[in-house]
């Protein structure tokens, strides 16, 4: 596949690894903030290969992992509500709520339909005019245009059996939360490439100078990741707290203005409760008042659960702020496994714990 295979070349990977080793005079601590990057860093053995010269820690880049338990509880209640179908990305199904996951609700007769796109949830609403279709709208800025578009289309089509649980989160406020933690260890960021496709990276410049941290916009393939790491190391070695774009084939400085305007039409920035982190100021989007008819929180306020219980034994927030690596969690692969998870990072396809559980026992693998 063009624009994909070229960035998996083994020889180029090796020479980038050599360059990173040559450049790094001390083990810099870099954080990725995208679960897709986390998975590829572990899957391709990059994290292990570079362990002697760069410490890669994995930030809160998994929207599923930071969705508050209360929202899972709400989705469970909706799925069990008569004549209602919850449409959700597959990732959400095993995530523990306060008492049960969507998967467990399904076993008890709850109606849940896995969809690949919010627009598929909309199609479901057209196919089932007598049922209520509620889409669990999780995701970063990358996903927000798709759910906003579904809301716009549903409005234009006057579909009154479609609504969403607004649960979108925003990356930059979470990065700020981490930088403000007293025991923060992050020295450089690999910024999430596809989030930046939408948002651009203007807002990262003042952030980089304020927190004196270099930020490199990075893609997902092994070569992209290695180029991002090399650039971040170069900036650290030369003391430059600036923003560089290493994913220029898809990311433009201003981002995608059409996508931004679609988000803007439907959503406004709001504070958001992040699972394990607490409330993050400006950490999410809420639906604008004009779209309140499509807001499941208002439409089905009768089944809104009380505030969710926090995770008791899961150290997900410590993992996602880089304090510990997944394997340092005492529950990892003992009391917490994908079959019986204590926390979301073990079951989301982008969760850091899931990545290590799945790939880390494998020997170092250079892409070929």
């Amino acid at each position, binding site marked *: 596949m063009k624009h994909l295979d070229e960035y998996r070349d083994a020889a180029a990977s090796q*020479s980038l690894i050599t360059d990173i080793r040559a450049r790094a005079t001390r083990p810099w601590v870099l954080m990725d903030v995208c679960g897709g990057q986390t998975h590829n860093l572990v899957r391709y053995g990059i994290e292990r290969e570079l362990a002697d010269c760069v410490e890669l820690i994995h930030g809160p880049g998994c929207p599923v992992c930071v969705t508050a338990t209360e929202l899972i509880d709400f989705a469970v209640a909706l799925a069990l509500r008569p004549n209602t179908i919850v449409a959700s990305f597959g990732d959400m199904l095993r995530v523990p709520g306060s008492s049960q996951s969507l998967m467990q609700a399904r076993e008890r007769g709850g109606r849940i339909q896995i969809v690949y796109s919010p*627009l598929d949830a909309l199609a479901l609403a057209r196919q089932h005019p007598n049922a209520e279709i509620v889409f669990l709208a999780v995701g970063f800025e*990358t996903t927000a245009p*798709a759910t906003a578009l579904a809301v716009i289309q549903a409005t234009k089509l006057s579909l009154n059996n479609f609504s969403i649980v607004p649960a979108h989160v925003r990356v930059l406020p979470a990065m700020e939360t981490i930088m403000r933690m007293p025991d923060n260890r992050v020295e450089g960021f690999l910024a999430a490439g*596809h989030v930046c496709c939408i948002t651009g990276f203007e807002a990262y410049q003042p952030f980089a100078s304020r927190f004196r941290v270099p930020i490199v916009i990075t893609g997902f393939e092994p070569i992209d990741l290695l180029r991002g790491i090399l650039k971040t190391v170069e900036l650290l070695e030369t003391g430059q707290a600036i923003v560089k774009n290493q994913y220029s084939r898809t990311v433009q400085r201003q981002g*995608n203005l059409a996508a931004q305007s679609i988000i803007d039409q439907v959503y406004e920035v709001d504070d958001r409760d992040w699972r394990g982190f607490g409330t993050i100021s400006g950490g999410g989007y809420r639906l604008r008042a004009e779209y309140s008819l499509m807001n499941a929180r208002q439409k089905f306020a009768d089944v809104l659960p009380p505030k969710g219980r926090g995770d008791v034994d899961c150290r997900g927030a410590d993992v996602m702020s880089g304090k510990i690596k997944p394997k340092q969690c005492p529950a990892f692969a003992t009391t917490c496994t994908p079959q019986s998870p204590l926390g979301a990072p073990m079951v989301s396809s982008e969760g850091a714990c899931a990545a290590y559980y799945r790939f880390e026992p494998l020997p170092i693998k250079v892409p070929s």
Partner: protein
Amino acid sequence: MCLGVPGRVVRWINRESNFAKAEVEFSGVRREIHMACVTDANLGDYVIVHAGIAICLVDEVEAEQTLAELKSLGENSDETP
């Protein structure tokens, strides 16, 4: 979650802003993709698709520049013993 896959635009189905749709090809497989965020794409252009919608165009010039850098990198490393 933020996974995005590059695909080639092969046929416009609808160019009406919020309902814009095109057929996009991924390794020989064609799918209908929502195009509201890239209504200016031309046939043959590559777009990154995420959750059923195209989120941006792939910039061919930038892609070629990156690949050229990679190539020179490979050549340099061949020279070093």
